[in-house]
């Protein structure tokens, strides 16, 4: 699916401007200090119509919260979410509901995203039923049409999710997601819970549906190989902040952020002949409660400098449609350098 670079200049279908989402942490007693989970901090992005936008990150990076903010399920603490030009969270209830009909979501875990007590028919029909306004016959017809589209049989209508494999359940989830003809679909790690050999089937199905219905996808994943293949634009997130953002071709051709590089080397390629240098990170993902003041990645970064701990990194444009938030790239000011803030925290280790 080739999208011309001009589309970036046209009105984006979804736009997020400096969105932050913070959740309060329950205090152990009423007089304790109030702490916040900074799930998403200052994220800005534009999703053009018809494209697939990739959001890359691991667990705890805030991508699910970001996705929830996109579809109106969680209200941002700061910033705006614009869908088709309208500020989503300022819409009147009816307009909000209508806008929401144009958005849907495909979930990661095929085993918990379908109500085990509902038949396949009930599951796929549900959004239609909730929206109302369609006769039973019309709904049945639509359900059958979608069932065939995702590659299942008429006789599967009366079965329960437990009768199906993970890949098949995901297909049911896809059918449910497109039954209301949404324009915008958030795919939250749709294949991570499935066997590798089934990934291809589901991904191909998603791509086909996108092409035939001109849908816009936001594709959340930690598998960079898939993202490279299907996403035109992407955003790399860590602990709620944008690390690297831009056109995916540019980022893959020239990955600059240490986290992006680590992700790339961690996506173990199965080419036995090449043994690339693996960048191993230190430690574990820290908690999003009260994250570090400076760059949020500094504790695990193999190239961290002293200044990274206290000075936050801003997004700078390194080339057209490619921005990075990293002191290695943007550098320190002369005063900061004079203070020795650019010295490495730990000397580089081998590999």
């Amino acid at each position, binding site marked *: *699916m*080739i999208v011309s670079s001009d589309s970036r200049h046209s009105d984006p279908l979804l736009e997020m401007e400096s969105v932050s989402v913070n959740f309060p942490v329950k205090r152990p007693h009423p007089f304790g200090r109030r702490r916040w989970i900074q799930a998403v901090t200052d994220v800005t992005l534009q999703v053009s119509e018809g494209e697939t936008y990739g959001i890359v990150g*691991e667990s705890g990076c805030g991508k699910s919260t970001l996705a929830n903010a996109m579809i109106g399920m969680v209200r941002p603490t700061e910033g705006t979410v614009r869908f088709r030009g309208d500020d989503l969270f300022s819409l009147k209830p009816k307009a909000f509901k209508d806008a929401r009909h144009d958005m849907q979501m495909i979930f990661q875990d095929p085993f918990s995203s379908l109500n085990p007590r509902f038949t396949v028919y009930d599951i796929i029909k549900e959004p239609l039923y909730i929206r109302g306004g369609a006769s039973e016959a019309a709904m049945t017809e639509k359900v059958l049409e979608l069932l065939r589209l995702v590659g299942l049989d008429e006789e599967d209508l009366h079965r329960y999710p437990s009768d199906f494999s993970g890949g098949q359940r995901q297909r049911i989830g896809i059918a449910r997601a497109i039954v209301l003809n949404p324009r915008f679909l958030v795919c939250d790690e749709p294949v991570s819970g499935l066997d*590798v050999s089934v990934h*291809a089937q589901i991904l*191909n199905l998603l791509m086909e549906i996108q092409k035939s219905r001109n849908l816009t996808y936001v594709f959340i994943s930690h598998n960079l190989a898939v993202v490279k*293949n299907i996403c035109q634009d992407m955003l790399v997130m860590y602990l709620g902040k944008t690390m690297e953002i831009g056109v995916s071709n540019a980022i893959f051709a020239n990955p600059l952020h240490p986290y992006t590089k680590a992700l790339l080397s*961690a996506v173990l390629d*199965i080419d036995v002949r090449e043994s690339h240098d*693996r960048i191993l990170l230190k430690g574990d993902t820290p908690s999003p409660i009260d994250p570090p003041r400076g760059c949020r990645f500094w504790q695990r970064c193999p190239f961290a400098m002293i200044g990274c701990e206290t000075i936050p990194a801003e997004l700078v444009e390194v080339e057209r449609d490619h921005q990075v938030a990293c002191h290695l790239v943007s550098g320190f000011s002369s005063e900061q350098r004079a203070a020795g803030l650019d010295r490495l925290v730990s000397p580089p280790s081998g590999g």
Partner: protein
Amino acid sequence: MTDPMLEVRNLKVAFPCAGGVIRAVEGIDLITKKAECVALVGESGCGKSVTALSIMKLLRTPPSVSRIDKLQLDGRDLARLTDREMERVRGRDMAMIFQDAMTALNPVMTVGKQIDEVYRRHTRLSRKDARQQTVSALELVGVPEASSRANSYPHELSGGMRQRVLIALAFACMPKLIIADEPTTSLDVTIQAQVLDVLKSMQQDHDVSALLITHDLSVVVNMADTVYVMYSGKIVETAAVQGLFLEPRHPYTQGLLASVPRLSDDKQAFVQIPDTVPHPMRKPSGCYFHPRCSRSSIPCPQRMPRLEPLENGRQVRCWHPLHQEREM
């Protein structure tokens, strides 16, 4: 040719149930040499986890029924051992790393105590000495501040940390064989890389044989020396890892390899294997893979092919295996 560390011959496992019999494992042979890492690769439901449990003799009858011609660990016959004798083998000579650390670890015991337990059970160490060993084991697997971390409960640790604890548990008594069942599947990508790194260095530094069970081919590339590909209860191909990835012989192996998205790919559709794995109670006639195989012809639907030896110690179970030259 040195004696193998683990030798499994003709393992068969079935689960009788109300509607018939689930044919989980249908006569497989498995050999692991000393300090070798063997990968058992297959999709969900192919029988690989059942195989691992059978080797550890953790399958109960009922609900399973199994037959085996030979089960030997370092020359010692395990098939004839009683449960009590087997308990002494597990943990000391043979250890398992499970997929889900949260269910494998006791939630009400500190991790240090759980590792201590392994030492005290299989060696004559005092409590103090066992704790010393525990701390050094934790340090070995890369747990920071090991002595204080040892007093944490499993839920207080992150996923990657817990997996490292499992590795420490498994390696505690330096067993001869480690069986790792999807050890990193539930982890994040970067944590996965770290944990696999630890596993690999532990295995290599201490000459421990390993049987790695996974569906993720990218894990196999970095860890294994020999690969066994399993499909619907049968081994369909075995080869050294280089040979398998560069020149797969079985169409299923080729399909699996092709369906993994690569970073080097151009933007085209993902290669997929049509349909799904056969139901373990309703397997097709002849070769189990034939309904999904593009090379299927006579006698694939009629007769199950045998596991034939090829050059370099490779084996393949196919009437029409792929060639020397790479086929597209």
